[in-house]
């Protein structure tokens, strides 16, 4: 479980202006659940993710990952995390398999566990033809598959995915969905950020809508639709954002 306690983050621009990226955010991401974090550009999604990774220090509040505070015990917390960051890169002179193995070794995965699991991942993500190829010249989908395999190769309990199905073909998207569903069924905590509403609809058990650094809606799909009084998720999401904008005006 990932707990966010009263988390705030303020940035100061070069001109001295203060920007609130997250404002007293309190929520939790449960085990055995896929939680979608939705929000417009600049809503605070990336800042939230980066604070969870432990790469941005919060202005106040804390994040506890599996009981470890990310500010106090970052390495223990990271050991339980697998992250696919937005627009993540690969080592282009290494093969896809070498990229995956490298990150597994960095997480301290032993060779005996690694080989069968890595082979399974490669097979499930349809990477058999690219596994031994250097990543230079990979398509967006091939890069995404490699980065996804790399993020979860150490079988982390907490999985954070930023637009994981971006650029994937239909077959691979389905296999990613199946993989994530299986990971959820194994009791893992999955945070999922996407702009593709049908992806969120198909995969997520819970949705958190962020707007200007605050949670404006938190619940399952039915709850979100009810709250916005809309029949589909995309309309509900847009309606909630618009309502919030009007309220703030």
């Amino acid at each position, binding site marked *: 479980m990932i707990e966010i306690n009263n988390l705030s983050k303020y940035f100061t621009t070069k001109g001295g202006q203060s920007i609130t990226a997250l404002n007293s955010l309190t929520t939790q991401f449960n085990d055995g659940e896929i939680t979608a974090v939705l929000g417009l550009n600049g809503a605070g999604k990336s800042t939230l993710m980066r604070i969870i*990774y432990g*790469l941005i220090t919060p202005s106040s509040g804390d994040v506890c990952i599996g009981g470890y505070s990310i500010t106090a015990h970052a390495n223990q917390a990271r050991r339980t995390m697998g992250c696919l960051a937005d627009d993540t890169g690969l080592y282009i002179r290494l093969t896809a398999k070498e990229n995956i193995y490298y990150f597994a070794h960095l997480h301290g995965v032993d060779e005996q566990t690694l080989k069968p699991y890595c082979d399974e991942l490669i097979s499930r993500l349809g990477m058999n033809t690219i596994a031994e190829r250097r990543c230079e010249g990979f398509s967006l989908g091939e890069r995404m598959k490699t980065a996804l395999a790399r993020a979860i190769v150490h079988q982390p309990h907490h999985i954070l995915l930023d637009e994981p199905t971006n650029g994937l073909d239909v077959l691979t998207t389905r296999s990613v969905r199946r993989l994530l569903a299986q990971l959820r069924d194994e009791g893992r905590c999955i945070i999922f950020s996407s702009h593709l509403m049908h992806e969120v609809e198909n995969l997520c058990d819970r949705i958190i809508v962020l707007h200007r650094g605050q949670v404006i809606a938190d619940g399952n799909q039915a709850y979100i639709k009810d709250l916005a009084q809309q029949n589909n998720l995309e309309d509900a999401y847009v309606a909630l954002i618009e309502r919030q904008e009007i309220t703030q005006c």
Partner: protein
Amino acid sequence: MLNRLKPLSVVAKKEFRDVGRDLKSLQVLFFLPLFMVASFVAMCLFTLSMSKNSQLNLDQPLELAVSGAENFPELIRALAENAIKIQPAAVIAPGTKSSEAVSYINESTPYVLEIPAMAREQFAEGHSIDVNLIYDGSKSRDQGALNRIRQVIWGFNQRLGQLRLLTRNVAPELINPVSLHETNLASEEKMAGLFLASIPLLLIITAFLTSSGINADMFAGERERRTLEALAITSCPSSAIVLGKWLSAWSLTAIAVTWQLILLSCAFFTLPLSELGIRVSVGATDWIIIWLTLLNLGALACSLQVLISLHARNFKDAQMLISLMAAIPVITLGYTLFTPDFYASWFNWVPIVSHQIIIKTLLTGQPWALIPIMQSVLASLIPCGLIMYIAQKRLRTTRVVYGRNA
């Protein structure tokens, strides 16, 4: 302990593999030392060829084209006595401008001595005769022969002047109140030191710059490609990431330095340095100490590059800043090259300067002492350790992972 070293070796192995597949990095690794040694060899061969040319000119008969030889037979005789063979040249018209005189010299007649028509009368009357030596000063190969002709004419001049003074009952010493004799006490090793002073510069630049591109790519390049974020999210300790990357860069520097020293020892072995009056006596122990000295400096250079790469805005910036680092050894060594005898004991505590002193001492066959070497080692390793400590503390900061615009 082994478990702690494992992530470090994982990072270092990956970096080795990555660099091994990067043709540009490999080219720098092998061609920079080769280029440096080739420059030294070229410099030696050029000096040797110049020296041989001047020797050849002194030993062999020399042909000199003379215009108006019949006007001054005394000088012609003196030239002939010094093995200078006189060839008749076309008569140069009086009042010929220097710009027109170029037509009198060519490949077969590179220089001409012009004796004026009035020379005989002027000589008889005891006046000074203006003889004109026409040559192309841009042709360095003729300089030896020209010097020889000048020396013969000066000798003739002096002898004739002394005879004239004697005939007038004046002691010739009167016109030479000071007589200068030169005694050069420089040993062969000292001469070698002067010549070999450029070698520490070549070696130190290699130790400083070989891994610059690799180091720039390790953090600034990774940030640009967004792999640094993925790396920072892992549970691998920051110290292992930074040290692993530094270790691989340092090992590559070690390979380049070793390669350069092998090339240099081959150059010393094959080049006829003794013909230049240089005796290089570098034993196996000396080579090992030079190697260790360069590795020590390489460690400091790599750590500085790591720090720059961590904080540079992007890969290009990192490359530029790291390239500017080359100015540090060039300025330092340039200064000591032109003031070779300026030495103070605190130099041993200054990185680069102390390394240069050690290398120069060993190359010139002077006795070495352990204390200055240890001082030099500490002077590099202490800042290196401090820099690495700062680098690993900074690795997972927002500014390093996401850049200044995060």
